[in-house]
């Protein structure tokens, strides 16, 4: 700032602008070329940097992001669609399996029933055969035992007659025994 020793010319040089104008440096025309020159340089630098580097880069990043998001949404939609399809297929397979299982159960049941019937028939036949056989054996035993009784009775009657010392006719004795047995029978 101005001191005691400063000359009037120097003071005017320092404060020339203020002394000449109403005190606004904005109206100091002598500084205009400087400002305009550096403004154009600055704008040129900013424009160069923006158009060459910054804006294409940011634009590309934004486009890439938008693309990524769109792709992700499409992929998610696709996956959801596939999941729904898989669920449908699963349900269908389950229903099919259930039907198939029921069919197999019914089939097996019928098969078993048929086998059972055949086996039962066979077993019944066997039982009937065995019964008949046994009946025949019982009948034979009964007949033979009846024949044995008459034979024993004749032998006993002959022996008794012989013990009494009588010489009896064998045929007569037998006839008498048979007659007696016939009465009882």
């Amino acid at each position, binding site marked *: 700032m101005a001191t005691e020793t400063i000359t009037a010319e120097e003071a005017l040089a320092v*404060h020339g602008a203020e002394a000449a104008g109403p005190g606004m*440096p904005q109206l100091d025309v*002598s500084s205009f070329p400087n*400002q*305009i020159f550096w403004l154009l340089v*600055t704008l040129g630098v*900013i424009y160069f*940097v923006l158009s060459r580097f910054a804006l294409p880069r*940011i634009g590309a990043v934004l486009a890439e992001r938008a693309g990524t998001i769109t792709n992700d949404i499409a992929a998610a939609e696709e996956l959801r669609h596939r999941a729904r399809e898989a669920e449908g297929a699963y349900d269908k397979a389950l229903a099919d399996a259930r039907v198939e299982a029921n069919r197999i159960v019914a089939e097996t049941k019928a098969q078993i029933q048929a086998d059972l019937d055949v086996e039962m028939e066979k077993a019944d036949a066997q039982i009937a055969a065995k019964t008949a056989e046994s009946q025949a054996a019982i009948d034979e035993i009964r007949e033979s035992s009846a024949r044995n009784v008459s034979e024993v009775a004749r032998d006993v009657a002959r022996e008794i007659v012989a013990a009494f010392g009588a010489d009896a006719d064998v045929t007569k004795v037998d006839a008498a025994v048979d007659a007696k047995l016939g009465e009882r029978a």
Partner: protein
Amino acid sequence: MATETVALVEGEEPGGLVFHPFDQFEIKPLFGEIGDPVSWYTITNATFWMALAALSVILLLVVGTRGRAVIPSRVQSAAELIYGFVYKMVEDVTGKEGLKYFPWIMTLFLFILFSNYLGLLPLAFTPTSHIAVTAVLALGVFIAVTVIGFVKNGMAFLGLFWMKEAPLFLRPVIAIIEVISYFVRPVSHSIRLAGNLVAGHAMIKVFAGFAAIAAISPLSIVAITAIYGLEVLVAGIQAYVFTILTCIYLKDALHPSH
């Protein structure tokens, strides 16, 4: 005259209340003596703060996005937010045809935005507070829009001024008003931006000057804080306003029929 100036300067210095609200807007060479003349190539504080704005743009939009991540980092996220904001603005206002000019509009928006915000740093210089800067921006937009309008539409671009909806006898009057308003555009476009910033910054300085009085200083600090908060809003809003007006002018050039 010269001695009077010295006396005026001398007289200001020892006073209790010192207001220098416009000192912050002075263009000073960054290197060398204070009194050195400022020629067009001199590196000044304006150069420095413009360079800082350009550097911030590079840091945010180039260095911040070097990862090119699909899932962005915080800085990349901010860069994408600004990109999307301006891109959508251009697309909404001008339509698909305007997207060709998106890098230019983005350049304007980012330069103004970063100049405004960096200017809010203490001791900073605000390039966009100078009418020389905003006038170049606004004139650039004006000339570009006019050229685009005539190149795209030929003489049909003049239909912008000829209201077909209006009654016939009113049309010439409206046309005159429309032409005037068209040529006033760069003026309002540039002064709106510079004026807002100058007013806010100067006001902060004025309140800071009052802080020299102890009794007022707490109020002064509260006022500075409040105005600073307002300026933070203004810095963003003015960048937005400048950009959307550029888009609207561009839309007029691309679709001159109302």
